[in-house]
């Protein structure tokens, strides 16, 4: 046991002290925050430059009055021109585009409006103009039926639909979107852990083999101790990295207002400007607090470790089998990656439909369950499925570690021979 802890320490500290670890650990959250800020910034500033739009309103739909919420858009009504005649002039007259509204409007189909332009017009501007036309048509229809459009707007219904889930523990409001995001993040973290740290185990093992240090080490410790120490050490590196990321994300979020007050003001304004912003913010907070967080965290931790342990031992066995040839490694890795990727796909569907057949099967099958179960953690998973899934995962880890350890002990001392899956299975099943 003492030796395993020595090995864990070596695996852990040699990696954590590397410059690359520091760089990726620090740069990733900064890049993430930068993206986050950039997206908000871009959506706020609306990205479009000022647009002058000419209107030839043959139907007199707007009654020569038009105002848009989008301050970048300015409109001018053009008289005494036809669609064809103005087509050649609008650009020279300083307009980026012009809208043609034909004389006869069919209020039911509304398909005969055209925005002419030199360059493609940005989608959000198209949406804005479309909304203006629809408003104008609606007002015209309302007036034709003797209704004052302003009064109508005031008295319109504004319904909001909530989904309440009634369980034995009482009624709970459903926050589908929050649950969706939490599921995706948990699933994604497990996926990353399996992929990147699993392959690190593989590289670490094959490095030990090609360096020929494996032979020195296994004359001091059992190959199994070496393998387990490596898997746990590298896993600890992964957990450290995730923890640092979480702390950094919080710190950066707190630090941004101090460094760039403008940015945060804009973000806050954007959120607070509208009533919807406030409501959205509230519902996020409510949503998070309404979710069964203890269950989510404990499920996440269980499947996070279980998934890593299962795949890390398989990757360790592959690393022990290959030598310097990376192509050889890739061939052996491909079938191992398949269930991880399939699991990820099922998970992204399971968040929408947590009780579908593929979600249930995927969350029980041990090679996909760590990821797929994350798609279901915010939903209610029947107890028998949870127990079956967890015990299958634990059993598979034990059985696989036993097999992979046998492959590993043969593999790390075997040189100069290309190994096939068939041979690997032979090693796994032979007696010592």
């Amino acid at each position, binding site marked *: 046991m003492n*030796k395993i802890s*020595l*090995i864990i320490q*070596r695996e852990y500290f*040699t990696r954590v002290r590397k410059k690359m670890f520091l760089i990726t650990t620090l740069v990733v959250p900064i890049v993430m925050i930068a993206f986050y800020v950039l997206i908000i910034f871009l959506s706020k500033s609306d990205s479009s430059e000022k647009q002058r739009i000419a209107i030839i309103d043959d139907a007199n739909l707007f009654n020569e009055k038009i105002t848009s919420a989008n301050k970048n858009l300015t409109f001018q009504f053009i008289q005494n021109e036809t669609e064809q005649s103005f087509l050649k002039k609008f650009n020279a007259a300083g307009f980026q585009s012009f809208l043609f509204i034909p004389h006869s409007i069919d209020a039911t189909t509304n398909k005969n409006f055209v925005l002419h332009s030199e360059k493609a017009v940005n989608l959000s501007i198209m949406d804005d103009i479309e909304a203006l036309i629809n408003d104008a048509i609606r007002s015209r229809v309302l007036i034709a039926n003797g209704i004052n459009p302003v009064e109508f707007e005031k008295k319109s219904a504004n319904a909001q639909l909530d989904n309440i889930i009634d369980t034995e523990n009482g009624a709970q409001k459903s926050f589908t979107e929050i649950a969706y995001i939490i599921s995706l993040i948990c699933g994604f973290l497990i996926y990353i852990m399996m992929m990147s740290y699993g392959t690190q185990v593989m590289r670490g093992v094959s490095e*030990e083999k090609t*360096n*020929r*240090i*494996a*032979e*020195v*080490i*296994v*004359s*001091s*410790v*059992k190959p199994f101790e070496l393998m387990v120490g490596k898997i746990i050490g590298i896993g600890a590196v992964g957990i450290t990295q995730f923890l640092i990321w979480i702390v950094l994300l919080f710190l950066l979020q707190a630090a941004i207002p101090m460094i760039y007050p403008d940015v945060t003001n804009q973000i806050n304004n954007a959120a607070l400007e509208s009533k919807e912003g406030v409501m959205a913010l509230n519902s996020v907070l409510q949503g998070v607090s309404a979710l069964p967080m203890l269950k989510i965290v404990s499920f996440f931790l269980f499947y996070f470790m279980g998934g890593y342990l299962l795949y890390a031992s398989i990757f360790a066995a592959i690393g022990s089998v290959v030598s310097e040839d990376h192509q050889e490694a890739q061939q052996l890795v491909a079938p191992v990656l398949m269930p991880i990727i399939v699991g990820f796909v099922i998970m992204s569907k399971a968040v929408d439909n947590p009780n579908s057949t593929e979600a249930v099967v995927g969350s029980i099958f041990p090679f996909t369950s760590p990821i797929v179960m994350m798609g279901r953690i915010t939903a209610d998973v029947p107890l028998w499925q949870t127990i079956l899934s967890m015990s299958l995962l634990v059993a598979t880890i034990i059985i696989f570690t036993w097999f992979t350890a046998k492959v590993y002990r043969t593999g790390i*001392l075997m040189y100069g021979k290309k190994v096939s899956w068939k041979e690997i299975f032979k090693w796994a099943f032979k007696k*010592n």
Partner: protein
Amino acid sequence: MNNDLLLLDQTIVMNLVELHNVRKYFSSQKAVDNISFNIQAGSIFGLLGPNGAGKTTLIRMITGIFYPDSGNVLFNGKEFDALTHHKNIGYMPEERGLYKKMKIGEQALYLAQLKGMSKQDALKSIKEWFVKFEMETWWNKKVEDLSKGMSQKLQFVTTVLHQPSLIILDEPFSGLDPVNANIIKEEIFNLAKNGATIIFSTHRMEQVEEICDQIVLVNQGKKILDGSVDAVKQDFKENIFKIGLHSTQKTIQTELFEIVQQLPEALLIKLKQNVSTNEVLQHFINNDYSIQSFQEVLPSLNDIFIKLVEDSSSARQFQNIN
């Protein structure tokens, strides 16, 4: 019966390692086929054989990396157990292995701790060895920054740090320049003098003659011979003598010996059966030769091994390079 028991008792006291009918088959070959030999405590033991003879497999069974398919390995008279005995073994494989990116000091410390040393003891021992090999300034260097000879020295240090009673060195001089080879050789003698038993595995015969007390020769998984270097040479001597003479001009005709080789101031002669050395000397004296020297020429291990394995294709490796 009684005699056998008595013998057994003696061997337990004297032998650090005993192999009894050890066998290890791999799917494609018989790597070690029913080999037995003993290694006396405190001796420098040569494990010899061409490449692929089964040396590494034998070593891996002695170090507990492999289990024999059948037969057993005794360490200090007890059945070998990797868990208890690995502390007493230092093993330097032929293919050197160190973590390239790890600092030298930390690496030595790590390997020593894996052998069960406490951190303090390990640090003390590392410092002593580093001073001895003039490596004190290397502590923070990485292995990838070392020359081949330097990393070889480090490998040797990590092998002997924990004061093992059995030190296994697989081709310890390969890749070393003569100066460093000499330093390592001196240390091997030193360690043996201080009571360590050393297994020296090689296919370089001239080193064996210089260093080893006892040898075993394996080829194609089988033991071909074992014994002390002197005994082996005695067994394979061919009654050849070298006689130093002032002049070898005269033709010599005698029934006592035949001339193997004529050198400027000496003759190599092979005595006929039942001819004593005195008779030969008498012959030279009677014929008025002035004799400078007279000595028996023992075969080199190289010659012996070529003779023993010449039927196999692997014998080529033993051809004299000179």
